[in-house]
């Protein structure tokens, strides 16, 4: 599925939840459990995303020109949020990630659900994922050039 198709899928999942704020938050917490197990030794300072109120660790790896993300957090809501981002952006080419317009966040009204502090954190997570993509793109281009 394309980035857009997955985003649309997420939007329709949230539509089913309706306006009930509590159920929506429970749902976000629940889906965080789908995150791939995060290696404990990677829970270190240098992998922490700056700008998040709660702790978020993010690492990325490249295989066959695609980027694989792994992440973890010390809060369940944040785990749910990062899971959504990973679901949309994982195992894609760097340029796809860099160019991705993550409109699902606005479409599901995430800002209103999670509040301003966490919205800033979410923006920091996206930025960090795109920075990883940019770094890998530069690296891939350089090795192709060789």
């Amino acid at each position, binding site marked *: 599925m394309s980035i857009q198709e997955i985003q649309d899928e997420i939007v329709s999942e949230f539509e089913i939840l309706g306006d009930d*704020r*509590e159920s929506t938050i*429970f749902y976000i917490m629940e889906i965080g459990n789908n995150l791939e197990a995060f290696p404990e030794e990677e829970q270190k300072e240098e992998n922490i995303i700056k700008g998040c*109120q709660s702790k978020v660790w993010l690492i990325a790896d490249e295989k066959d020109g695609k980027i694989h993300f792994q992440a973890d957090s010390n*809060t*369940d*809501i944040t785990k749910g949020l990062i899971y959504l981002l990973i679901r949309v952006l994982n195992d894609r080419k760097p340029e796809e990630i860099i160019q991705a317009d993550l409109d699902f966040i606005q479409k599901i009204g995430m800002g209103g659900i*999670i*509040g301003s502090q966490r919205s800033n954190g979410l923006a920091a997570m996206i930025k960090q994922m795109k920075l990883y993509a940019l770094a890998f793109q530069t690296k891939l281009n350089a090795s192709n050039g060789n």
Partner: protein
Amino acid sequence: MKFDINEIRGLFPVLHQEVHGKPLIYFDNAATTQKPKAVLDALMKYYEHDNSNIHRGAHALADRATQYYENTRETVREFINAKESAEIIFTKGTTESINLVAQTFGRKFIGQGDEIIISTMEHHSNIVPWQMLCEEKGAVLKVIPIHDNGELDYGEFEKLLSPKTKLVSIVHASNALGTINPVKRIIEAAHAVGAKVLLDGAQSSSHLEIDVQDLDCDFLALSAHKIYGPTGLGVLYGKREVLEAMPPFLGGGEMIKEVTFEKTTYNDIPFKFEAGTPNIADVIAFKEALDFIKSLGKPVIKAHEDELLTYSNELLKEVKGFIPVGTAADKVSVLSFNINGMHPFDVGQMLDARGIAVRTGHHCTQPLMKRFGIEGTVRASFSVYNTKSEIEQLAEGVARIAKIKNK
């Protein structure tokens, strides 16, 4: 005024609203209390009728504004039973009050090798100004430990006291735990070694009767916005002889007697410490907040809040996974807790979905959180306008949330 919860709630316009489609339950009172309509009306009235710069104005409006401003000073004097209103200095809050003492009293009277004693449960605003001073002067900061229930280790405090102790700066009631400290004893013991005492009254002033003459504290700091008054306003009380011995804090208008380019002489207290145009409107409106408290009486307010705290403990102790933080025998109405397996931030956000406003995190007391080996807590703090039914809804919400991780 008789204690009628509906009548009291009627005085606070902000309470009557829905949040996320649910009636607002405001349990973030230790951060800031809501304001009675009389305070809001006084603000409006000042700007509509009396707005003018105070002191030295040769016209009717300036006279009126000055009179109202000084009326509040007198009301604050009465509120804490200071000897005279000149001992009441308006600041922008507890933080500024403490910094004022650090930067004036501290810089003049605390030197190399001198000791300042604080406690483990201090707010950052009663830690950092002293660290800054110690760094500058080569003085030493000593910290009173606490017991596991959040009570001060008084025995250890006595051991820390010595002729080197120049100042004890201690919180009257803890913002993160609710613990009420035995301040009268502390002040007596500190005075016995010749130390001055600053009392951080930010949390206690809305709940406990404070009589600075009876307590004999040298300084008291408090914030208007935590006692139903406007934001951006605080009070520093100091004993006359201490305030007079201190150099000024900020230089500027109002705080001078005479200025020449060669030398400036300073005004008398309290004006010596109120440089520039003060927060006139908020000072004037603050009187209404104090009058509101007086109309009920603090013992009546405290009794109601105690009832809410006891009830919340009763209901929540039944919740599987509920971990109270701070269980001192003597507390103001602060309920700090964690849920086993959950981050306080998540709990707070889920309570918010139910219209329940609580605070989560370290509550500006990181060393205290470290003492308990936790990152933070969920803090529900109760005020005069909260109800038992609101406590029941809190307990119901917490129970539902706790179930996620504590089946």
